[in-house]
């Protein structure tokens, strides 16, 4: 089990938690890894708390149950921390990455977290500036790539750009913004001390 990296994404319906998990897995696949990406399924409501998941490994992944002890947690919306236990099951040596303008120390205090590492990045600001809308999922991909250190960043950027070109063939103008947002988040994600 130790060789499988497990990731949990927290977001709200419509913020792209599912898409982010798919994009991250797809990029990892292109770099030769075995992958899984799956959302938590329930009633789909815009704005309601949702989760999605990734497994990444160098060897084939056969396990098909849910993820309860993630190594990395990604929080797309900091207001979720008030109502959802985002650190539930986080491994002792795990990491949590939160989209917020606050510092990692402030977030650690808010979560009352005694373990792991805390990272923050202002993904909403980055998305608003670079994409023109508060869609924090793509910048969070950049932050996750930095923190997980499992993917080569330039290869990941190249792959994601190709995927976005296919997905948004009819809206090419948003691709450049998304790629810049990923790069900015990769460069500006902050750890503790």
């Amino acid at each position, binding site marked *: 089990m130790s060789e499988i990296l497990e990731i949990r994404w927290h977001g709200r319906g419509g913020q792209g938690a599912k898409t982010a998990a798919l994009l991250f897995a*797809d990029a990892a696949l292109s770099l030769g890894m075995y992958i*899984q*990406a799956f959302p938590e399924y329930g009633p789909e409501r815009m704005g309601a708390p949702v989760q999605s998941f990734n497994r990444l490994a160098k060897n084939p992944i*056969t*396990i098909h149950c849910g993820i309860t002890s993630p190594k990395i947690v990604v929080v797309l919306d900091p207001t979720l921390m008030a109502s959802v236990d985002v650190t539930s099951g986080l491994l002792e040596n795990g990491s949590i990455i939160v989209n917020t303008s606050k510092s990692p120390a402030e977030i650690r205090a808010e979560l009352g977290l005694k373990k792991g590492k805390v990272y923050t990045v202002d993904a909403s600001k980055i998305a608003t500036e670079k994409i023109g809308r508060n869609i924090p999922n793509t910048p969070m991909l950049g932050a996750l790539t930095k923190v997980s250190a499992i993917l080569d960043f330039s290869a990941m950027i190249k792959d994601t750009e190709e995927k976005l070109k296919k997905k948004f063939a009819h809206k090419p103008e948003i691709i450049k913004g998304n790629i810049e947002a990923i790069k900015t988040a990769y460069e500006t994600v902050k750890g503790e001390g």
Partner: protein
Amino acid sequence: MPVLARTGNEAMAEAMRQINPDVVAAYPISPATEVVMIFSKFVADGLVDTEFVAVESEHSAMSACVGAASAGCRVMTGTSSQGLQLMSEILPIASALRQPIVLCEVNRALSGPINIHCDHSDTMAVRDFGWLQIFSENAQEAYDSVLQMIKIVEDVKVRLPGMVTTDGFIISHCMEKIETLEDAEVKTYLGEHKKMNSTLDLTKPITLGSLDLQDYYFEHRMPMAQAMIEAKEVILKVGQEFGAKYGRPYGLLEKYKLDDAEVAIVAMGSTCGTARVVIDELREKGIKAGMLKLRVFRPFPAAEVAEVLAGVKSIAVLDRSDSLSSQGGPLYTEVRSALYDAKTKPVLSNYIYGLGGREINLEDLRQIFSEQKSNQSGKIVYFGVRE
């Protein structure tokens, strides 16, 4: 071979695109909706030559499939749960008319209460309708088995319809790494579709679906039973040939660390993948654990099951459905029956689990293995259900 990131539904739709069937008639239902939704996009984009019939119900979907297949077309569809049940008036007609229709089925609980998540109740409910049934552990197996199923059902010894299943959401909506064949390779692999007994062949007029009473009905049912017996060899042959060509061999069942196992489970679908991890763990601790993964439920490979389970001391059969028979789940009763003539009979228990998508995780499987030591044969456990 192309390496892709695909969900179970996308993998099945991709296989359908490459098969390029003459007719697809379907009605959407969660979690199988995407299979036909993605396929209908292939139709709209002109990537296939298929006549897509958007019907108003699954009953009509299967009726249209039978009609098209009777005309000699290669026909496919997809559905799940209540959709499969709404087809169920027509399913035995498809098999009795010996129409080689292939259905992509996504396993989902039956209503009620309403539940959209995975169990095998829907597929098990139609197990005696003369359809071949293949279960997939993951998206790769779903893709491979859909291609193979076309070959199997069109074999002149079989000529029965078949369904390939994935586990709802667990596989249907989980994106994984799959290897596909090139489009041209699929075309070569499947070969030309040969029409048989087409109602549109005016030089050889035939009647299908006529009244058939005490005098001949029985004689017309018997060849179906024979075809189901012969299907076993065809499934095996097709699975081995697929392995020889593409490196992924398939059988009726798969033994996982079973040969010297003292304690084992029998399971189908996605749970088998999770169980592999637990079996590896137990083996590292020196416990001789193993698994029989059943791929083909219809025809039921009873002799093969009995042979591979013969030496195992204790076996838990995992059923992701309950037949409400008071005698355990459908897989359990089949396995138990298969072992009736075995010289050494294992301790055989039944775990009915995961109904309505209830999670089955590593800890659950560890518990099932550890309970084997003290289980009495014939014990039926409703695993994890709250009182």
